[in-house]
């Protein structure tokens, strides 16, 4: 008797499902999925000009290099000119940060993207000159040679006259 009752209930349920499924459906839904990846680290591209070094995370670089930095970390960068040189300019993603370099150190903002640090060193005491970069000693030597040459010419002239 109980089995008959259960079967009866099952048939009723199936019939109900069938009725629901047969109802006309006029609403349709479709989905577009967008994905993205946020990196865990970024590349710091160091551009070095002149004589000096750049130290990042304990690693010292004497020429241009790419360094991997953890995302959202702030990094202290040391800028050390070689003897006879000084820091000329420091650019961070094109922005001039030279005046922000204190005691040859500068702390970057939290890394959120690949970045470029451009450091340029110049010789100390260099007088800017237009034209060629001929050195002072060489100019003196040239002047001495010219004077000697002129002296020889005058002497020869004198001898001819005699």
């Amino acid at each position: 008797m109980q089995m008959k009752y259960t079967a009866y209930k099952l048939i009723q349920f199936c019939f109900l499902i069938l009725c629901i499924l047969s109802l006309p459906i006029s609403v349709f839904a479709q989905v577009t999925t967008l994905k993205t990846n946020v990196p865990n680290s970024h590349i710091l591209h160091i551009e070095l000009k002149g004589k000096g070094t750049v130290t990042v995370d304990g690693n010292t670089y004497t020429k241009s290099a790419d360094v991997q930095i953890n995302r959202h970390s702030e990094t202290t960068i040391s800028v050390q000119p070689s003897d006879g040189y000084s820091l000329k300019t420091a650019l961070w993603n094109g922005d001039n940060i030279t005046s922000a370099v204190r005691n040859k150190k500068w702390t970057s903002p939290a890394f959120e993207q690949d970045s470029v640090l451009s450091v340029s060193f110049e010789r100390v005491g260099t007088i800017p000159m237009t034209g060629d970069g001929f050195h002072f000693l060489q100019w003196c030597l040239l002047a001495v040679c010219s004077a000697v040459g002129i002296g020889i010419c005058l002497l020869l002239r004198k001898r001819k006259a005699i």
Partner: protein
Amino acid sequence: MKKVIAFVMAIAMVFSMAVTVSAESTTTITTFVPAATYTLNIPADQEITYGTTSKSIGNVTITDSANFADGKNVRVKIEYDAFKSDEVSTKIPYNIYASATGRTNGGSYGSGGSTSITVNKPSGSAFIFEGSANGTCSEFFNIEKGGYGTDTSTISINISIASSDWGKALGGNYSTTLTFTSEIYVEE
């Protein structure tokens, strides 16, 4: 006998009287309204490059439409939420907007120029595709009521993400879904 004959003659007289009552005639006209049908096309699944602040992701269009009429339109509702990750707790919010090139009125000086149309589409807003008397539904949604027309080839759905929101997000893989729900409705 005479009474019988008189009765029969009276009955015969009654039945011989002309009857002039006329009955009503009806004509029944029937018709069948078929269900409107269409195909909804939505932007494909795709990858958004880190740092992108604005990008076209495709378009929403209706094709293969039939059995529509003036005022019988398709409404496509868009629903979405921020990018989320299973790996980290940060979310990346974004906005969806529709864009197109519209035409401007040249007035009495000749043909008009073009103008840029941008319409914000927050979650829960809808795109309306209008039915027409020829039985079809417009392939492109109506981006701008009024105006002097739109270059439908330039209609686009776009995503915009603020750079600062990219910056706040922790490293990881994120995803989001845009749900497009369409239904036929009749303008009142």
